[in-house]
């Protein structure tokens, strides 16, 4: 069965640079979630999209933005990167907007030097 695809899997950036993370949800899934997991931390919710509209926002810095496109893939754009942005970024997708099992991608490991 198709799973959630994230690209790139690894990314190394320098401080103040920009990064773009991509997420391709499971086919027919209408909701995408982004989570950030710092070293030794639990995943923290950043933002979610339902049917290409932002549905909820968590602890996402103003330097970050995201969107969901017409083909349902989503991109997380991160600007003015800081050392503290180094983390594993997960994308998850679900079929039903109002609370259903979320399927996680393999994550993108971002390292900011």
């Amino acid at each position, binding site marked *: 069965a198709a799973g959630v695809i994230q690209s790139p899997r690894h990314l190394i950036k320098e401080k103040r640079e920009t990064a773009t993370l991509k997420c391709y949800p499971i086919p027919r899934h209408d909701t995408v*979630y982004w989570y950030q997991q710092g070293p030794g931390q639990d995943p923290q919710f950043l933002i979610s999209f339902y049917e290409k509209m932002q549905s909820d926002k968590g602890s996402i810095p103003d330097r970050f933005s995201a969107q969901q496109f017409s083909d349902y893939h989503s991109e997380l754009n991160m600007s003015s990167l800081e050392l503290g942005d180094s983390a594993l970024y997960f994308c998850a997708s679900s079929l039903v907007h109002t609370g259903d099992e979320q399927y996680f991608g393999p*994550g993108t490991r971002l390292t900011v030097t």
Partner: protein
Amino acid sequence: AQTVTQSQPEMSVQEAETVTLSCTYDTSESDYYLFWYKQPPSRQMILVIRQEAYKQQNATENRFSVNFQKAAKSFSLKISDSQLGDAAMYFCAFLYTGANSKLTFGKGITLSVRP
């Protein structure tokens, strides 16, 4: 807002033995799901088991079962016949079934399995 608490940062179990991982949560909602996720060194988030709050029967998946006590807001995971491959970080997570649902995770527990 929901909170999930995993008070044990680490646990160890002998191979083939049984271990129970604890989790408590706090919510004012009545409709929700609870999950246990496994995160091995690869850091992939793997769903182990889920429990719907409206179901009284505890969920079971092969060697994994839960003890769901809704009134006490407790959701523990029992791993039977522990295997070396069970060694990982385990996260308890809460998901509200209403709009804008997002997973709220506990801090996680590191499980090691002794051969």
